[in-house]
């Protein structure tokens, strides 16, 4: 049985059709990459999956149950964790409190021991008493990951987790994601522009362009798709220039 099934999801904002009949599924423990040009509907898709935005048409089925009518908090409690493109930490609260809140409300148990365990996993245990607002971007991304893990997710939605990071930090986050996956077996959907990093963690990619799926398959196949080259990669990338 698929962990997640997205069936014919469409969404418009005013006259702008952001998603058009998007359908795909995800197996338990699978890692899926979603790429595409800016404005292609990637973040809107994550927002629909996490319940922040309601789709106009289509349905989302998670663990065999339709979740279309569920609000984000209920989806989090079912096991959908997410991070944001621009980090949305509780900046005036401590690093520890940032993890304790989802542990209590999303994960069902605000155990400080478990919170410290998660912070240790992302390498922030020594900073647990610092205000989240004082962290660097890479540290913020790590904390968002710890926070998303606090809801005991079966599915992690990661929105541009590598964006704005230097190569060293990208490497560290990549290793962290691999470690999280091997330890928890959590399924992941990564919306990403940093393809080099993305392709090191996923064997399946969806390319969105103008709200519809123009490619689905192995990363290597992207460079062979005329439509993907035209809409997203460009000739230089396809010929190995990037």
């Amino acid at each position, binding site marked *: 049985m698929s962990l997640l099934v997205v069936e014919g999801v469409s969404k418009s904002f005013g006259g702008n059709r952001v998603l058009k009949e998007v359908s795909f599924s995800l197996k338990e423990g699978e890692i899926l990459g979603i790429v595409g040009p800016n404005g292609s509907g990637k973040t809107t898709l994550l927002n629909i999956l*996490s*319940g*922040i935005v309601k789709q106009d048409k289509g349905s989302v089925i998670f663990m065999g149950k339709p979740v279309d009518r569920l*609000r*984000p*908090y*209920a*989806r*989090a*409690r079912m096991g959908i*964790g*997410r991070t*944001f493109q621009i980090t*949305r*930490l*509780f*900046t*005036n*609260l401590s690093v520890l*409190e940032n993890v*304790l*809140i*989802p542990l*209590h*409300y*999303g*994960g069902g148990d*605000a155990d400080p021991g478990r919170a410290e365990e998660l912070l240790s996993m992302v390498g922030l245990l020594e900073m647990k008493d610092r205000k989240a607002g004082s962290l660097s971007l890479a540290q913020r991304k790590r904390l968002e990951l710890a*926070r*998303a893990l*606090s*809801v005991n997710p079966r599915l992690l939605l990661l929105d541009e987790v590598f964006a704005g990071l230097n190569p060293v930090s990208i490497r560290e986050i990549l290793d962290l994601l691999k470690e999280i996956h091997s330890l928890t077996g959590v399924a992941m959907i990564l919306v990403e522009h940093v393809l080099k990093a993305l392709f090191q963690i996923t064997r399946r990619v969806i390319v969105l362009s103008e709200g519809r799926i123009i490619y689905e398959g192995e990363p290597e196949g992207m460079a062979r798709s005329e439509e993907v080259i035209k809409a997203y990669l460009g000739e230089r990338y396809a010929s190995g220039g990037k």
Partner: protein
Amino acid sequence: MGRPEIAVLTGIVLVGFLPPFVSDYVERVVALALMLTSLALAQNILLGYTGYPAFGCIAFFGVGGYTTAVLMKELNLQFPLALTVGTVSSGFLALLIAVPLMRLKSHYFAITTLALQLALGELVANLELTGGVQGINLPIYRGPGGYLIFFYMLWVVAIVSFLLNAYIERSTFGYALKAIREDETAAETLGVNTVLFKAISFTLMALITGCVGGIYAYWITYIDPTSMFDPLLSVKVFVALLIGGVGTVGGPVVGAFLLEVLSEVLWGQFPKVHGLILGLLIVLTVLIIPKGMWRRR
């Protein structure tokens, strides 16, 4: 509760021992300060912890006051029962409107609550039941303790409000409110039922504010729409909160006492220009210490 908070709580408790040693005038000023303390602490739950500024919070003061007064006058209910119904009515009204109202945020929410306050004031001014613009006269309290009973009622409400704020500061319930204040969307995606917690926060604010309104109504014995739905009282609550420190447990108490006492002293010393001086002092305070006297942890 940290040491500074315990010191403030001790201060409020000690205030309860003042009446035998001070004049009726000082006793009245302290009672007003206790009233403002409760109102500021109530607003602190909503603004300080949840991040929603109910600029028209005094709507619930009016509802509590008028419900208490109407029940006493029209149905001859005893004050404790009338006050209970008045308090619950304020809370119930808040619960009823919380979900649609709290879809709005920041200044939109603030202005809408102010509109509610003004609309309720107008409604009360045009109803026969509430005495219209002439208001309602209540019988003078002649029971045990005399007027001191109102002092102690306000004292108890201030202590309860303080303890509630202290609980919110440290509890998982408070974490939910703070998460909403920090980032509502993120809070929701992390399992916090934001609609529920916002409604609870709004209702708690209304319950305290309504209870204070009910006590005030019987204390003053005469209420009218202007005094019970006074926008200036809303401003005073916000100023006390800003001076003291939004989102802190001790700040609203310090701010309320400072503002009330300073206001009285200036009124006594400079009767013609006390408002001007007080206004300047408030502006200076907010400019020099924008986050208030009591810093958030």
